[in-house]
């Protein structure tokens, strides 16, 4: 996920999900360095998958939702969930 795909502002929005990703990465590295138990490849595989698979899933969902949200961004449109009506407009319009 490079800066070219998303602009700076979007990266800032997405950063909220990089923190849990960072924590997951930290634990993967920790488990690689600190392995006080006798090695058992199967268990280590399970151990790593349990952290890495959710991480990949999170990365993918963040990427696709980021794309969907940024792809449909339009500065003209109403705020999320709000009608066009605001303080100045007495008669609000729920329809377009």
């Amino acid at each position, binding site marked *: 996920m490079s800066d070219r795909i998303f602009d700076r502002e979007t990266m800032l929005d997405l950063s*909220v999900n990089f923190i849990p990703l960072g924590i*997951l990465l930290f634990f993967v590295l920790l488990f690689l360095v600190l392995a006080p138990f006798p090695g058992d490849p199967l268990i280590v595989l399970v*151990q790593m998958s349990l952290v890495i698979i959710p991480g990949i899933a999170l990365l993918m969902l963040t990427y696709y*939702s980021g794309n969907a949200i940024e792809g449909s961004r339009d500065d003209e449109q109403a705020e*999320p*969930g*709000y*009608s066009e009506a605001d*303080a100045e407009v007495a008669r609000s319009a729920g329809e377009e």
Partner: protein
Amino acid sequence: MAALVGAVFLAALGFVARVNGWWGRLPFVDRTRVATDGGHAHEPGSGLAHKPSGITRWLTTVDHKDIGILYGMYGVIAFLWGGVSVMIMRFELFTAAETYISPEMYNALLTSHGITMLFLFGTPIIAAFSNYFVPLLIDADDMAFPRINAIAFWLLPPAALLIWAGFFTIPLDIAISPAQTSWTMYTPLSVEQSNPGVDLMLLGLHLTGVSATMGAINFIATIFTERGDDVTWANLDIFSWTILTQSGLILFAFPLLGSALIMLLLDRNFATTFFAVEGGGPILWQHLFWFFGHPEVYILVLPMMGLVSWILPKFAGRKLFGFKFVVYSTLAIGVLSFGVWAHHMFGSGMDPRIRASFMATSLAIAIPSAVKTFNWITTLWNGKVRLTAPMLFCIGFVANFVIGGITGVFLASVPVNLILHETYYVVGHFHYIVMGMIAFAGFGAIYYWFPIVTGRMYNRKLAKGHFWLSMIGVNITFFAMLLAGYFGMPRRYATYSDFNPELAPLTEITFLHQVMTAGAVIIAVGTILWLLNVVWSWKKGGKVTDPDPWNTKEYGLHGREFAWFEQQLAATDGGETESESAVATDGGADGESVATDGGSEQA
């Protein structure tokens, strides 16, 4: 019993087949964008015009708003059932020894309380709000599949009857008693209890799962395909985002529960060995159950976080701070919640390396939860806070989440968990969340949307009394539980008189239990105030003629649902909306603006 369960399976199959046929034969309704399953398509704004009256209307309705109200009624009835059962338990626990009810009855009430609150109150009360308001918020004419929407609801009443069946059969004396499995239904106990009441409960639970899954598919389809032209992913409101995420979680979690329940039924009735020691083993149940169970807690809390994210800014006079943070962190929670399930099983003898992995993911999931808390607090910062009843419940929600969430993070740490697991600390942790957040957000949303749903205003004095009693009661009851957990009081016990005093000092624990009971009484009084208020105001409350009862236009925070409400008012009462002065308040307190709900503005 085996034959009976088999017959129920066959009947269910037959029913599904019939429903399919019936569904296919329906005439397709004109407007394809609505009514994709032939459901009744209604013109926006002409809502009530061509509906049958009386009870027939409620039995045949496919209007998302009516179904929302039905879900709401259902959720409230379940809340009362769950509340009464827990009050009986709390009175029993006032003294250490067995006093009013037998331990068997205690276990039955405990099971019923947990299952009722999670499956019959929690999920349906969320469906009440989402059915009524998601279509309005995304400018859809109705749900994508209005008939499926109705079927999903109508599966629930039989589900409740099955789940509660064991209690109804007590007076009949036919050897069917209420299940005593607790909501987690751990094997081998749940296989060994030969009581047919357990089978009935499992079948009922299965129905709730089918219902929730149908609802979830409907919401996913609705939010993806029925959005108005000017509603995009970029400006989809936060409540619909949380409902979309919740529906995704339901789609993956509930079918798994359904399969596990069927395996359990087979083990009980047809001598299969899925969870027997010589077969899959009892731990298999725990893995399957919690792979559903942890997402389930987020199924319940995410939409409530969405409600608070939607309502709280209205009374803070500012837009939600960091809207996109809240959206992305909601999605993050959705994904990660499938990777943490075994933090409920740290004590079950798993390999320590695998435990460590679950600790890692559980700590990671705490971040998006905390992010939301900071967003709410930042929204309040320097805002024009108006302490209306819905706002009080939102603020109480945030406060309770601080305690509920942090205690959760402690529990996620393996060494701490091994000490506190199966104590009242855990019970305190999740009640801060399920009562202090889920129920609170529900109450807040009911007050906030009361004008839209009923056309009337509630009594604000009672509403504030309700809030303060609930807030004080929750913090007394559940904080005492955290302390009792530190003192070593194990959970799920009807008596505590013969524990080893070295491990659990009787005086302190008895005192804490009495505090908990007192707190629960305070909550109960508050809840009665709420019930009276809602019932009375629905019939007799002042009519709301102002389309902007919360004065949100002033802040540019007028939501689509209230814009819709304005159209409704204009359509039904002609020009009456013009007269701003005729604003109905809750008790005719003239001159006081309804919007502030008596709350003082603070700069």
